[in-house]
């Protein structure tokens, strides 16, 4: 297949992103998918569209590596990224034993006995920084810093690959790109 040089060819990562309509779950899953492709990995995602996008529960599935099905099965996710804390009990069942839970929450979250929760108050940070729409990138930056990119056990890419993917989306320059980088860096700073 099309594994890139220097990448572990058998890397397989299953990620579930959970939030509510309007939080930018779709954007985040596409960004991660584009970073995965740039890293030479095959990728499959599944998105939520339609009525749920009007503030209802929105879930994206992301599978990096050799897969056929676009859906992550219950108990199989290596990473569950939650933008709305109230969704944790709803989607915790996707996580595998030992899988990482990263949550946008003001207070510590109980992930149960088999998982570890990493929390960041991305809402408060994003509002304080004057970018309430970039909560998704704050959370992603935090997750990248906490879990590490590329290496075994971490996410399949690092902050550099995410920045590259953002640059491609925003055309390489401009204030939107700078704001996106700032949000990502804010999350990274809080995860380091």
């Amino acid at each position, binding site marked *: 297949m099309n594994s890139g040089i220097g990448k572990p060819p058998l890397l397989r990562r299953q990620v579930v992103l959970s939030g509510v309509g309007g939080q930018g779950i779709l954007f985040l899953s*596409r960004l991660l998918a584009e970073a995965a492709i740039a890293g030479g990995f095959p990728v499959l995602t599944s998105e939520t*569209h*339609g009525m749920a996008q009007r503030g209802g529960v929105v879930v994206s599935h992301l599978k990096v590596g050799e897969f056929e*099905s676009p*859906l992550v099965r219950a108990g199989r996710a290596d990473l569950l990224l939650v933008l709305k804390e109230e*969704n944790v009990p709803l989607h915790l069942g*996707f996580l595998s034993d030992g899988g990482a839970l990263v949550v946008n929450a003001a207070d510590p979250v109980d992930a149960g006995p088999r998982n570890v929760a990493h929390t960041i108050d991305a*809402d408060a940070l994003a509002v304080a920084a004057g970018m309430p729409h970039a909560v998704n990138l704050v959370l992603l930056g935090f997750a990248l810093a906490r879990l590490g990119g590329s290496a075994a056990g971490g996410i399949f890419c690092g902050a550099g690959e995410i920045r590259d993917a953002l640059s491609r989306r925003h055309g390489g320059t401009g204030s939107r790109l700078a704001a996106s980088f700032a949000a990502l860096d804010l999350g990274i700073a809080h995860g380091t």
Partner: protein
Amino acid sequence: MSGRILMQGNDAIARGLVEAGCAVAASYPGTPASEILSSIDRWRKRSGSTMHVEWAVNEKVAFEIAYTAGISGLRAAVAMKQVGLNVASDPFLSAAYLGVTGGFLVVSADDPGPHSSQTEQDSRLLAMMAKVPVLDPSSPSQAMALAGAGFELSEAFGVPVMLRPTTRVCHASQDVDAPPFHPPAREARFVKDPARWAATPAFRRKLHDLLAGKIAEIGSWTATAPIRVNPGGAPAKAVVASGVAFAHARELFGELGLTDRIALYQVIQPYPLHAAFVEHLLDSHHEILVLEESAPVIEMQIADRRRVRGRMTGTVPGTGELLPEIIERLLSLFAGLPVPDGALPPQGGGRRPTLCPGCAHRSAFYAIRKAVPRGIYPSDIGCYTLGINLGAVDTVLCMGAAVSQAAGFDYAHRLSGKQVDIVATIGDSTFYHAGIPPLIDAVVQGARFVLVILDNGTTAMTGNQPTPGTGIGAGGETTAAVDMEGLVRACGVRFCRVANPDRIPEFVSLLKEAVARSREEGVAVVIARQPCAMVTLAARGKEPGAVVIAAECNGCRHCVDRFECPALVFDETSNRVRVDEMICTGCGVCVHVCPVGAIRRESAGERRS
């Protein structure tokens, strides 16, 4: 950096169509098919091809426009969601008899689950009923390939071909190769043949014979024949799967170690199922499990009932999406493996969808309940179906039914000597789609009700596609625009007023007047005109700190229960409402809602008018 790009299933279908030389494409938006047409337009622009691309007023019109290009020697496609095919079923069934001279693809996207639809219906059944061959992709990349293969099949036999993706193909994304391309161009040429294109019943019978013959031949067309993905030997057991159920099964075959024990076939063309394949299947294997969504289309074409298991035998659940967890269980049972005791995937629950902050539909619904508290409220398909949360939506049947159901409620109650006030709601796009004929009917029959047309100037639910009232085409070009008030009056409605629902007190008065008038002179129409908040927000941004909650808030919950703006949050600890600054648009409509006047505008003057 690899040459592969991320492509959504709908985008992949669009690219496949444009690459194959599709010259005319028409659609009406509906989840999960909505992105296909806008993607077609993007690929059109990128490839520099000459095409007619349009958002049609409804699926029937879209179908007829594309079909006609297909009988003029061109390649053409129509895209819709499965219930859209119901609307287009009249031309669909007839077009199968008449056939095409170019290539014609009907993309009908199904929604097993259903995730964002009224039904879980299987478009393949309608294809069977029409005698139209149907292709069933399992992934975005296969969907892209089948768009081209579909045109070839269509042209080889002169028939319409259906491409039937499901939500998990349309809204899956995948890395695909997308090199630059130059679509072939053709000249339109309609060859007159009234015995065919305007066939009378006598000719229809002959055309039906001809079609039946074509379907038999298509059942041996090699390009779309089933594929055994794990060749070798003839194990006792075989799994036959199509669509995304095949993708789930293929992944699970590897995980469960079934690849060397059970034969796995992918059916690409569920109808007509290849005759030689059915024979081979029954000759080679003793037990056969069929996995497909959402009706037993493949299963019913495999004759041996004792050896074939699927939905018809109750082995596979008869309703709902075939999630990979369910397929894992079915495959384990079929293979004689221990059945996993794992739970089903997390589904449902959590926050319900609601109208967006700043949405003017909310104002209209709030006003309707204020003006006509004991009314019957028929409604329709769109964002405003969420008016159900506000207690202002009593019925939702299908596109356009708000108008005919309003009339139906009037006639039914009148028979019992009852006077009920009926306030129906319908969006602008839905009104153009299917609301006009029932409005004419209601006027003619003297129905008494108020129709509120929620005119936000867009098809919001599906991603803000233009409506016939906007004067904007699929590619952003300027088109003619329909005058809604003129149209309503031309239907015979005498009371037709336009107002901004965000001015709640005035809007309540107008509704009361409309109700009074409808009792006297039949249908009264109120056009609630205010642009979609998503569009306004994107254009103007929001106004932070525009709304504040004053000390008078006594925690009565009226605003959160009856107005349900997501930006008004009830704080249980303080027993007061607070404004969620993250999402408040600053529209200030809630100021009219608080019974004690505790919600106030901070900034001077109203932004929205």
